[in-house]
């Protein structure tokens, strides 16, 4: 066997960069950038360049494992599949189908997500299907659907380079979405103004023209203050508002509460600066807003997104090139997992489970009776373990590290009667499983991922899964068939054909059409070229709707006992729960251990030096980690990434939920910090 080069898609973030994997004698030995890729055009970030490194790690799961007491025992597939099916069926028979929960995966392909939700919905007549989008962009889906009619990035990544003003709120794109950051620089080189709203002095901030270091959790006051000024000075796009919007009167009335002065007081930013920023954003010919977890991971996450949509619509910066609203999606296929209906309230294509016409359509197509009752979310499925939910099937998700208030999550994972975890490593979550199914990584399967700009892209199989591990698609087909469903698909392409029939927005998606550059949905029929930007002459919901963003301060603010703001997030070399990146030597060498960032003034006060151990405590628990002293965080704030199993940031985070989208408030909680004395 010689050397082969296989084009495929990066398994890390939602940018969806193009990779070329070099395969030598069946082993993935190197990764190169794809010069012809429409988004990444021959560049990659450090994670993309290292994408092959974890694939052949000795920790990969190579056989199904069955729990025997405290240990796992390897078993063959022809025992594993019947056992999984029996246990799930038993549970459903005893407690009803709604006692079974499924967590699908933003790391898996569209076809796998489609099959997963189909399996849960058909076999158990339950809508208890969700995935980690709940923990990142659930507010986006809800708020953008309400205001615009579609919960996805309105424009394309390449559009950014042509914007005149780019407003970044709560996104550290330079570390989390570096290739998108490249487009921002292109815009700056052409004269665009970059304005960044972030309590931290991130790498994005260092390249901004204007930085607004707002108090954590005061995005709504800032955005409302800006809107108030815009309306007062007549800087908004009156024609656009008249022709295409509804709800302006109500919004305007609400804005009367938000004088620039009040806004300034709440967010700790100079009045003049707020006015100036409002003017720049409103008056630019094309303005884009980019936001990320800094907006969504709050108990008022949905309202935050509403405020962003209101601002963009008020100024007419939606529905045209180079402008729009850019929620940056985290996981490589979190967009796709949502699109495919791995959500408790919708079928593929965001079609409501409670709508009887739609229920009918799916019942006919699938030939099974389906439930019209929306299911439970990630946090509920885990939280109700052993109570309402007796058995669960978790595919390639790691709630033991990713969900808030870890101690409770760990308790819950033990409480299931039967837990099936399907993954590529024995993750922190898989350790709690009764049955572990060894799946495939991105290089070992075909299918599609949808990136953050709605682009369906082809994943091409480069090598075989290790040992007895199987392609995820094959595992789902085996389980489905064993459950008596007609899951006799030969290839993921056939699944895509079925999806196209059932979800109008993806009606024109076919594997052969995706070969060259992929296709951006909506793509309703096989001649449709895909959609570069949404809401062109008409919003998806018809008219755009201004919705009032009610401000609720963070649920837990610093007080005497817990005097610091604690915020969590990602850093450039690692990804999410670190399952892949920490097994990648080049990435792990960059950062081998957990750390927390502390402002120099606080460090003096706490008598902590750089590199010393500190203990961070919140009302949920405490972790010991290493101090990094830096002005990137303001005085009174601490930041810690959540990639590290030995210092789980989510031991600390507050599980309070946004009432609408049910996202937990990862971004703010109150904490205490102490120097950890070396000798105890």
């Amino acid at each position, binding site marked *: 066997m*010689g*050397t*082969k*080069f296989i*084009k495929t898609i990066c398994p890390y973030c939602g940018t969806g960069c193009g990779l*070329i994997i*070099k395969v*030598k004698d069946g082993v993935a*030995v*190197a990764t*190169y*950038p*794809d*010069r*012809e890729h429409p988004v*990444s055009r*021959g*560049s*990659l*970030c*450090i994670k*993309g*360049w290292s994408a092959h490194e974890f694939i052949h790690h000795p920790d990969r799961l190579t056989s199904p494992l069955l729990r025997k007491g405290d240990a796992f025992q390897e078993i063959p597939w022809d025992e594993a599949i019947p056992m999984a099916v029996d246990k799930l069926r038993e549970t459903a028979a005893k407690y009803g189908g709604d006692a079974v929960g499924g967590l699908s995966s933003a790391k898996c392909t569209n076809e796998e997500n489609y099959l997963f939700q189909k399996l849960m919905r058909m076999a158990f007549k339950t809508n208890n299907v969700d995935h980690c989008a709940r923990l990142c962009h659930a507010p986006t889906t809800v708020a953008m659907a309400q205001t615009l009619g579609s919960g996805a990035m309105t424009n394309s990544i390449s559009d950014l380079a042509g914007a005149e003003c780019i407003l970044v709120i709560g996104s550290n794109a*330079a*570390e989390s979405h*570096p*290739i998108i*950051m*490249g487009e921002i*620089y*292109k815009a700056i*080189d052409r004269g665009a103004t970059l304005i960044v709203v972030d309590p931290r002095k991130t*790498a994005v901030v*260092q*390249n901004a023209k204007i930085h607004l270091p707002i108090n954590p959790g005061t995005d709504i006051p800032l955005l409302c203050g800006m809107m108030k000024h815009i309306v007062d000075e007549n800087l908004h796009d009156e024609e656009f508002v008249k022709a295409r919007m509804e709800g302006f009167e109500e919004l305007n009335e609400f804005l009367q509460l938000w004088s620039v002065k009040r806004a300034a007081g709440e967010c700790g930013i100079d009045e003049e600066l707020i006015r100036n920023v409002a003017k720049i954003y409103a008056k630019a010919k094309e303005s884009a807003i980019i936001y990320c977890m800094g907006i969504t991971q709050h108990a008022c996450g949905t309202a935050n997104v509403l405020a962003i949509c209101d601002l963009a619509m008020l100024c007419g910066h939606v529905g045209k090139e180079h402008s729009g609203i850019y929620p940056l999606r985290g996981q490589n296929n979190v967009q796709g997992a949502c699109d495919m209906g791995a959500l408790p309230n919708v079928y593929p294509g965001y079609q409501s489970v409670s709508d009887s016409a739609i229920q009918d359509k799916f019942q006919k197509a699938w030939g099974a009776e389906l439930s019209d009752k929306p299911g439970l979310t990630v946090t509920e499925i885990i939280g109700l373990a052993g109570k309402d939910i007796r058995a669960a099937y978790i595919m390639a998700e790691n709630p033991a590290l990713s969900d808030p208030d870890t101690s409770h999550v760990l308790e819950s994972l033990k409480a299931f009667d039967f837990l099936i975890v399907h993954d590529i490593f024995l993750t922190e979550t898989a350790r709690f499983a009764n049955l572990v199914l060894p799946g495939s990584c991105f290089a070992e399967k075909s299918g599609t991922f949808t990136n953050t700009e709605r682009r369906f892209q082809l994943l091409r199989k480069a090598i075989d899964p290790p040992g007895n591990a199987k392609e995820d698609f094959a595992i789902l087909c085996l389980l489905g068939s064993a459950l008596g469903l007609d899951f006799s698909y030969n290839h993921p392409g056939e699944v895509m054909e079925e999806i196209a029939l059932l979800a109008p927005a993806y009606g024109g998606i076919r594997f*052969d059409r995706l*070969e*060259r550059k992929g296709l951006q949905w909506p793509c309703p029929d096989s001649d449709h070229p895909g959609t570069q930007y949404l809401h062109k002459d008409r919003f998806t919901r018809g008219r755009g709707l201004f919705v009032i963003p009610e401000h609720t301060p963070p649920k837990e603010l610093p007080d005497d006992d817990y005097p610091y703001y604690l915020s969590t997030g990602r*850093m*450039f*070399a690692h990804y999410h729960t670190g399952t892949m990146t920490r097994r990648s030597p*080049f990435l792990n*060498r*960059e*950062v*081998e251990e957990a*750390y927390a960032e502390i402002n120099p003034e606080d460090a003096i006060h706490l008598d902590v030096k750089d590199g010393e151990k500190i203990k961070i405590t919140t009302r949920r628990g405490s972790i010991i980690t290493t101090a990094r002293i830096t002005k990137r965080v303001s005085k009174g704030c601490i930041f810690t990434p959540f990639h590290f199993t030995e210092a789980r940031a989510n031991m600390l985070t507050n599980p309070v939920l946004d009432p609408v989208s049910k996202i937990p408030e990862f971004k703010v909680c109150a904490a205490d910090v102490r120097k950890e004395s070396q000798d105890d």
Partner: protein
Amino acid sequence: MVVAVWSDKLIMLEKTKDIAKQILEEKKSDGVLGLMKSQWDIVQPHVFEKPEELDALVLEPKWLLAKLSMSILRSSPEDYRLAVICRGCDERALIELTKRNQIEKENLLTIGIACSKEQAAICLCDRPYPAKLDAGEIASGVDPFQDERVREFLIGNDKKRMEKWANVLKRCIKCYGCRNSCPVCVCEPCKLEDDVWVQRGAVPAEMITFHLIRAFHLSDTCVACGACQEACPVNIPLLYLQLSMRKTLNEKYGYEAGLDPERKSPILSDFLKEPETGREYPEWINSLREKDGH
């Protein structure tokens, strides 16, 4: 006119295919590394092993293959021979790699192709053709120092230029793409992975230690292919960083990387043995000259 350009390109492509076919048929090499266009118009590097596969060969876009050739040869049996379809910069990079014992000369064959005038203008290339040209016509190159953007970064007010550089270098996200894609950047262990110079886990990478170490390590090997700059996700004009050093070597020592396979870099050789023309010794070297009996 347009038709003529196209047909020139077609002629070059057909000729390259013929040469490559002949090489495979006569078993002069075990594989030919080039670009393959699939049924769906997807272009990617490919090792052609059978003559009939070569119908899918294409020459565009510019896609540098020198570093891939090296990695293929290194991971293949000792007697594996590879032919590489290469542009001017690719050929020069391969020559540097053989000079530095990274590739065995005997295992490598090149099929040289010429770049178009347009390509040369995009690359700021002054020599858009290989020394061993097998297909295509030589087009005129450009002098990079006439380019306005280059001049902004390299000529004139030091303070302003420093600011300009600092401004772009602080964008670096430390992807290591510049290092990874540079065909002549091959030291092991890499200084950019040395804690003494480059702090782990910190972005942006420090200006002096990261970027200047990289640039200086390549000062006499850089063939100005632009791969570093093309790989940079944040549009740092990394090629410009190399141009001044290339120019100095050329002016002071009449040396250019990748041209003469026999000539050592002046940095590696003994100053005193360098040809007289155009060279300039630093002051302190006079004492050495005396010792050496000059």
